Structures are given as C-alpha cells and as structure tokens.
C-alpha cells in the first residue's frame, strides 16, 4: 500500500495531535539569571573551555583536545586539538593559542614547563613527573581564551560575551558557530549581586531571612558541594575531641538550613566518596564532659566570616552546644580566633584532587591518590581528620529557583562540574 502525500500531510499536520506538548527542544528566546550569592564563575564555562573536562562520573574526557599521549615518566604530554573550533571573533583555535593561555597558569603550579606548539598539536614538557596533569587541565583556571582590547574574554564556548559590566551584569549571546552545536537559547542576561528573585533562574542563598518566592517556581538543588567546617589550631586534643562530640548537627540542618543541607562527618560528601557514612558519629555530651573534666580550659573565640548571617547562626549554635559540654566559645566576626568557621567548595568530581586541595587548605602535605582507589582515599581522609584540625559540620547544595518556562533543566545540569549549563536548556516561546 502506498502512503499518499496528502494522507501523510493530513496526519502529521493536524492540530489535534499533541505535538505541542512533546519535549523536543525549541530554538530561540532569552533567559535572565539573577545571582545574589553564587559567583559569576558558574557561567564562565559557557564562554571559556578547557582541553579536557571531568564528566559526572569524575572521569576525564576530551573537550578542546580530542586525544593525548604521555611518556612513561609523565613528564612529556602531547595533545591534539579538536579541529574546526573557532573563537567567538571567528579566529580558528590552534596550538599557539592553547600554549599562550596555559603556560602562565601551569608555571604557577608546576614551575618550569615548556610548550611546543605546531598546528593543532601542543607538547608540554615538565622537568618532573606530572601524573595529575589531566585533572589540573580540567580546571576552569586552565581555560583557553583570549581577551579583547576591553579585557573581555573571547572563548570558544557555546555563548559569547555580548556586554560585560564587571560585578554587575553579563550579557551572553548564542555562538552560532559553536563546535558542539548552537545553544537552543538566543541569549542570557546574568545579573550579579542581584537582590531580587524575578529572573527565570535565580539562586536562593542560605540565610537567616526566609525569602518569599514567586508562584509556580520550581526549586532545584545541585548535589551538595560546599563543606562548612570548624577549623582550629593548637587546641588541646581532649578539648578538640570534646568539642567535636558536643556538636548536634540536626538543629543546624533542620532549622538553620531548612532541611536543604546534609550532615557532614567526612570531608568529602557521600555522593563523591561512597564511604562518608563510616565517619558518622552521634553527639555525646556526657562523653565530652568526661573528656575535659580534668582540664582547665580558657574561653576560646570562634571566628565566622563577617556579613555571613548563615555562618554566624551556625557559630552561635555550636557555641551553645559547646557550653552544654562545659566549653566556653565566643562567636565573633573578627578574624584571628582560635577556631574559625570555613566554607570550602568542592570544585570537581575528582575525589583525589578534592582531598588534596583540602589538605593544602589545612597546610598538610599532598599525597599521591587515585580516585579509582577508594580504600586509599578513605585512609588519607581518616588521617586528615585525625590531625584534629577540622570538624566537618554540614554540606550545602546550590539552590536555584527555576521558572516554569525553562525546559530540560535537570538533564542539562548533568553536563559535569558545578557550573550552570545554559547551553542545553530551552524556553517556551
């Protein structure tokens, strides 16, 4: 039987078909992103790209480089650049651009490094083994971009910077010749330091004041990736143990964080390590009192970041818990306390790299770790906690309000990293 053209057209074009409801994406339209607390760094990867990137499983995958080789010593690395990649001003990407962008950043971390650039191939030569180079190159600090005469970045990403008012506003426009395919959106306006929640996408900071949200807004949370912890130096070991035992995380999570946070007992969250549950410990005020019963403790100060109401609330709560155990803590916004509250952001899905970054923040030596060996990671993390210099308190997600006209949000955010993936979302007309 032959399907006549008229029959096909009649069937496929009838308005009675529910084609309008299908989730096939649409091109065009603009969105507004209001960021009050989250930094502009979450949109940087929309403009600038790296040689490689970490996927959502924490594995390195090709990005601007399509292939790489290294010698057995991991001192000499050769990268082949993706062909037919263009900067936003139309200039084709080549190895000289990559070398110019990478060398200053690589030298900050690795000291002496030389680059040989030819066509689409760049060879990096180090004077010592660099086994973690790929993880380092996946960091947004290693993005390949140029700047124009006004200092605006010219990258290769799915969006180009249209206008840029530092600290206030970034206007992004779809890059028609993007190697990965033009974004669905035509443009995006990113308002920085916004105090309103009227954009299509806006961050919802953790704060003591509750915000009234517009109707029909969907709340979306990223995986938890910010650690709030208590850090101290030269605290008596028994006092430290007692303080750690006295902290009751449940009210902090349920009341202060409005149930959007997770209790932290390890440095890496469970989704990243898979073993964080092994560190779980219930508060034990009686044991805390017993530990310090023979000590003569002087009052200690607990510093929290000035102008951070959420951290102040947590510090006050910890001081209450500590008082119940017989430890006097005075929260203060002034720096220099014996104890301090810190916010450390987990920047990637590479557990080994994140653990080493935290070790550096604590002034501890870096270890040779692999994200594929969880046992090794656990032992390193256990050792860091045993230094009695840090008590993890809770993990926070980024929380955003998403307008109903935004489609494909959840799937788009699986694009890796913790940036806002606007390149795969689309909007109703």
């Amino acid at each position, binding site marked *: 039987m032959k399907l006549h053209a008229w029959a096909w057209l009649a*069937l496929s074009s009838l308005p009675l*078909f529910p*084609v309008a409801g299908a989730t096939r994406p649409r091109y065009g339209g603009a969105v507004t992103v209001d960021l009050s607390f989250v930094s502009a760094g979450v949109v940087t990867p929309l403009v600038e790209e790296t040689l490689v990137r970490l996927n959502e499983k924490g594995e390195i995958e090709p990005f601007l480089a399509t292939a790489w080789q290294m010698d057995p010593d991991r001192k000499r690395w050769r990268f082949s650049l993706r062909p037919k990649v263009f900067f936003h001003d139309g200039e084709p990407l080549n190895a000289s651009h990559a070398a110019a962008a990478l060398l200053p950043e690589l030298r900050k971390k690795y000291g002496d490094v030389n680059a040989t650039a030819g066509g689409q191939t760049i060879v990096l030569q180090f004077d010592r083994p660099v086994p973690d180079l790929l993880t380092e190159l996946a960091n947004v600090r290693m993005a390949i971009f140029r700047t124009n005469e006004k200092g605006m970045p010219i990258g290769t990403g799915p969006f180009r910077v249209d206008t840029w008012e530092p600290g206030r506003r970034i206007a992004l426009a779809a890059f028609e*010749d993007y190697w990965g395919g033009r974004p669905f959106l035509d443009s995006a306006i990113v308002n920085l330091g916004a105090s309103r929640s009227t954009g299509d996408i806006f961050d919802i900071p953790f704060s003591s004041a509750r915000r009234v949200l517009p109707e029909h807004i969907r709340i979306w949370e990223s995986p938890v990736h910010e650690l709030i912890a208590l850090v101290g130096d030269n605290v008596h070991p028994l006092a430290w143990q007692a303080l750690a035992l006295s902290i009751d995380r449940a009210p902090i999570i349920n009341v202060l964080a409005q149930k959007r946070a997770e209790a932290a007992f390890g440095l890496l969250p469970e989704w990243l390590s898979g073993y964080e549950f092994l560190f779980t410990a219930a508060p034990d005020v009686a044991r805390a009192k017993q530990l310090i019963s023979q000590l003569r403790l002087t009052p200690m100060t607990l510093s929290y970041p000035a102008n951070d109401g959420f951290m102040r609330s947590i510090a006050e709560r910890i001081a209450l818990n500590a008082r119940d155990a017989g430890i006097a803590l005075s929260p203060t916004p002034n720096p220099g306390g014996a104890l301090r509250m810190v916010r450390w952001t987990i920047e990637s899905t590479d557990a080994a790299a994140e653990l080493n970054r935290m070790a550096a923040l604590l002034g501890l030596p870096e270890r040779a770790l692999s994200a594929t060996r969880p*046992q090794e990671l656990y032992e390193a993390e256990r050792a860091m906690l045993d230094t009695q210099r840090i008590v993890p308190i809770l993990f926070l997600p980024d929380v955003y309000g998403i307008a109903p006209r935004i489609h494909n949000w959840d*799937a788009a955010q699986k694009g890796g990293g913790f940036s806002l993936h606007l390149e795969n979302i689309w909007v109703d007309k």
Partner: protein
Amino acid sequence: MQAQTMDTAGTQLADLISSRLQHPATVSLEFQNLTALPPAESSSFRAALQQELKRTGVEIAGSQPETLRVTISENVRGLLLVAWLSQSDVHFGEMLPWNRPASGERKRLVKITLQRMIEQSEPVLDLLLVDSELLVLSPSKVSSYRMDGGKWAPSGVAGVSWARPLPRDPRGRLEMAPGGFRIFVPGTSCSGTVQPDFKIACKPGNDAWPLNPRDSSSMMRWVTDRNVMDGAASEGSPIENPCSPGWLVLNSADGGVEDRDQIQAYEMVDGLATAASDPLFLPGPVTALWPSETPGQTTLVVWNPKTGNYEASRLGVACAE
C-alpha cells in the same frame, strides 16, 4: 573497567575480607544497602557473599565478638561495596567498586511493540538495515552491526567529516540507495557503501531529506541559516495499520512527567485524529522518530536520563487481542 556480575563481586569481596582474617574465622554479619539497588538484588548479593565467605573458610554466625558490616554504597563512579570488621580493639575496612552489568530491557506494552536495537552514549540519529547489516548514524560516524547470537554486535565503523558543525539537537537520516546508502545531515549529504568496503564520501549540500522510504514525495528541508529543521513533522511517523486497510501515525508527546515522552498510535476517523493505542511511556525525550526502510516498522531513539544513553529501537504495531 570490566563489568562484574553479582557472583564475581561477591567472590572478590569475600577474598578481600578473608585475606584480612585469621583462620578459622567466625563472624556475625550485618548488612545494609544505602543505594537504590532493588531489595531483591541486594538480598541476592548478600546470599552470594555469604556463600563465597564460606568457600574461603569464613563462617557466619549470630552474636560473635567479631562483627562484619557490609554496606552497598554508591559514589560518583558507581556502586561501592564497603566491608568493615570490628574485632575488640581492631577495626579494618575493605572497599571494592562494583561495576554492575547494564540491566536488561524494560517491559513492552501490548499494542505498540518495541524492539531494542542498540544503546550507546553518543546520540543515534537514524538506523538503516542493509541486507544483514544494521547501520547506525551518530554525529561523528556510521557504525555497522551484524546479528551474532541474537544480538547486534559491532562489525565496522566509518568516520565522517561534516561540512559544518552539527546543531546541538542533531538530526540525520539514512536512506537506501542503489549499491549502498545515503546520509543526510544539516548542510551535508553523503554516499556510502557497505560492500565490498565500508566507506563514505560527503559533500556540502542542502538536499531535501526523504521522510518516508515508501513515499518519494514526502520530503523536508533543513534551514541552514537558523541551524534548525523546518517544520515539526518528525514528531509523527506513518506506519501501516496491520489490522485494517489504511495507515496509522505514531506520534510523540509530552509524557506528563518532566522530560519523559510517550508514543501513541493515531488513526483518522471521520477526519479526526483518534487514539488507536494506549500510550507507550518512554524513559526520556524522543530524539528521533523516522519511518524505517522495513514496512510496518518505525525507528525510535530515546535519550534515557538515568543511564545517559541513547536507546534506538524499532517500533511496530500489533493488533490488540
């Protein structure tokens, strides 16, 4: 990393635990599952582990001074088996990543039949059966598969270089041609052969795409300056009605759940499009729905957000009982 069956994972973990114990050893076993692994599978793993522990000389008994806690956990890389043994003052842990094999096909509905062809992480734009070869069009290549033991097994790959970057929502079409096949993607047309050599030659072009292999008059065209497809006709695909003379259209629509589509068959009754089947709910959005070269079949590609894979299937329509 190679996939480990449940038995393999049980054996590996049992060996790790056993190597840390002094033999003969008797421990009590506590077991917990912190993941979305179904309880039945979790219980099966526990049984497999107990059996393997026994094989290595570790007895399981209640109320022992030595307690073995086994947890099925999960991290960003996949499942993680954590064994923790407490012996008076000594504690040790063993961790084993468990790379489970992919789960099998999901259930099919009665009226619309679905036959899974292949699944891959790269988008599938179209499928074409050429003699005994299945060709799969992806954004960067065409892969060929041959049936081997009831499954499509890879038999060849031909890379392709398009005249311009593909759009973010890539579409493409494979069509039979004398002596081989043709490929249509936005801004590029290619010709290829499977025998004697699997090879493809492409040139820039904006040829009209054939929509239906059995109707040469149904064509559509790519709007290159906007990088988008003209029209929404590809959300429906005509298919022969096996139960009465005429045609049906398989139509994709929002499945009522965020980013999940459904497929439903429609027929024309008194000039109105009327549902002819129950909807077939899909695990994600439809990314391609094309009439196929085989009468009575339609090619369907769905992106599954849970696995991140594109699932390419052939849909058919069977008479309801």
